């Protein structure tokens, strides 16, 4: 019991540090959205909306943080199934943007449910992995169902993030190596089947492996990412001279924001953001380490793993290290759904840490 005050203090310190770093990354993101859109003069509208989303997501975080984790977990199956239903109805009631039926529209606002429900997905998985008899056998169909519905949109990138997040949850949920291998193989087969059904995905992969195959078509985006990073050099080009961000990168304030930032800030600027992210994730995993209750620990680990893997995937795509796919950079890219979804995952982790702290017995005074 001697480490009780320490553990309590550590839980508080790490939670606050985690929140502070998240806010710092959000502020960086606001600057990045401004920087990428300033050359085209379209920044005011986007910056105002993104600031509003940042404020809303912060309020949501503060609210969810106060909800006891056991309440969240008790409602996880219902919330998880509701999230599946929301995804299921997208093809009928959703709005199609860039050929993808992934949004619901309400007046002038569009929300992307696949980004918003990531927290519910992880809670559902945590519940399945800690509260059910079959554990991993329960979790695998949950992951498959989410991925399948997202692939129907079709949103290849987000489905991949869900698959990675699910794999991370299974890994931290102590699933056996055999089951992890089976899941990874099943996921790869599923992805291959989807790729076969959508020839443009095969073309992207083929162009990635052989850039000379179709440099003006399927390989075009990947090549622009590499050029943007190369133009940035060590210290970046002046904001108004960031031509690749302004005229070549697809959605430079969103799916290509890391490449756009690299062009403007160079290796040094990008390195600073990487450092911020590294400290943030380190603290997130350290928070999990302090928790003892398996369900709280798992939920924090799975959330950190999913956001980390999404961050790495975005950066890999933006440095042309993997075939291009549309993935946002958590807390940095423009988009309210992505921002809110990430803050919700963080809020659930903070709620788990709060409950861990509250359930610790009061230290007894030594005589």
């Amino acid at each position: 019991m001697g480490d009780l005050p320490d553990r309590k203090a550590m839980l508080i310190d790490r939670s606050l540090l985690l929140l502070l770093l998240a806010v710092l990354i959000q502020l960086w993101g606001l600057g990045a959205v401004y920087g990428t859109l300033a050359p085209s003069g379209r920044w005011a509208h986007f910056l105002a909306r993104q600031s509003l989303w940042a404020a809303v997501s912060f309020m949501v975080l503060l609210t969810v943080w106060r909800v006891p984790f056991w309440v969240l977990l008790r409602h996880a199956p219902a919330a998880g199934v509701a999230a599946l239903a929301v995804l299921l109805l997208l093809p009928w009631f959703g709005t199609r943007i860039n050929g993808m039926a992934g949004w619901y529209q309400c007046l002038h606002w569009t929300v992307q449910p696949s980004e918003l429900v990531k927290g519910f997905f992880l809670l559902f998985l945590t519940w399945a992995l800690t509260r059910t008899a079959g554990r991993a056998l329960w979790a695998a169909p949950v992951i498959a169902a989410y991925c399948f519905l997202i692939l129907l949109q079709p949103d290849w990138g987000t489905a991949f993030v869900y698959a990675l997040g699910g794999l991370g949850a299974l890994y931290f949920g102590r699933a056996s190596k055999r089951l992890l291998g089976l899941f990874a193989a099943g996921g790869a087969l599923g992805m291959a089947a989807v790729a076969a059904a959508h020839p443009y995905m095969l073309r992207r992969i083929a162009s990635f492996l052989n850039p000379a195959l179709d440099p003006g078509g399927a390989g075009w985006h990947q090549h622009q990412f590499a050029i943007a990073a190369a133009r940035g050099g060590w210290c970046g080009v002046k904001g108004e001279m960031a031509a690749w961000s302004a005229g070549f990168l697809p959605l430079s304030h969103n799916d290509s924001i890391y490449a756009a930032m690299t062009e403007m800030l160079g290796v040094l600027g990008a390195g600073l953001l990487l450092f911020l992210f590294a400290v943030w994730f380190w603290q997130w995993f350290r928070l999990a380490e302090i928790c003892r209750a398996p369900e709280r620990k798992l939920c924090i680990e799975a959330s950190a793993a999913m956001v980390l893997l999404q961050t790495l995937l975005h950066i890999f795509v933006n440095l042309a290290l993997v075939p291009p796919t549309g993935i946002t950079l958590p807390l940095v890219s423009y988009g309210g759904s992505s921002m809110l979804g990430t803050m919700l995952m963080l809020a659930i982790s903070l709620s788990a840490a709060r409950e861990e702290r509250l359930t610790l017995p009061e230290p007894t005074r030594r005589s």
Partner: protein
Amino acid sequence: MTRRHKLFLLLAAAALIVIGARHVYLAGPGGNELRREAARIAHFEGELSAIRGRILTADGQVAAWSERCYDLVWMDSAADPRRVEEIRAALLKQFFTGGAPERVPSPGTPVKYELTARELEVADALAQEFPELDIELRWERRHGENTPEVGTVRQVNGMERGVSGAELRYDAILRGTPGRYTVMLDRRSRWIDSTFRILTPSRPGKDVTLDPADLVKEEE
């Protein structure tokens, strides 16, 4: 820290090293070829036309001068019929409310529409909304109403050159010296305005005052 934690963070650290290496490669000599390609694709250098000098009569009247004009140009890139209608409707609403609808540019041939100062602002907003529309600058030579004929000019590479009369005779003095600019182009070869830089400013042409002997020559 558990073994699974350590292994996961080790993999994340490996990914970070790959990212760092890729950054160093692209920022260093490995990115030279890409930077050259970027310059080849997007770097454009052009001539900055100089304003032509005025021609004055001996009593101080301005016989010829140049004015800056703007054209709204509809480039032929709107293949989608719905898009064509959208642009046509926007143009009709903004510029041809009381005019003849047959003047509305149609896709197929780029049609120019000279803009007044007020219309320029509207056109600028419209060009932001519709990338198919562009605004082009040109010089227009004007002549005084009660002044003698001083000759004609024609446009050569965006500059006005004297073709006849005093405009031709004093062309070397009037035409000025063009400057040079650089700008970067986007994937559709449109200017990225924020990247516009003047390398050498243009020098305006000098004014010429005609003496009575010149006017005799004009009449001859």
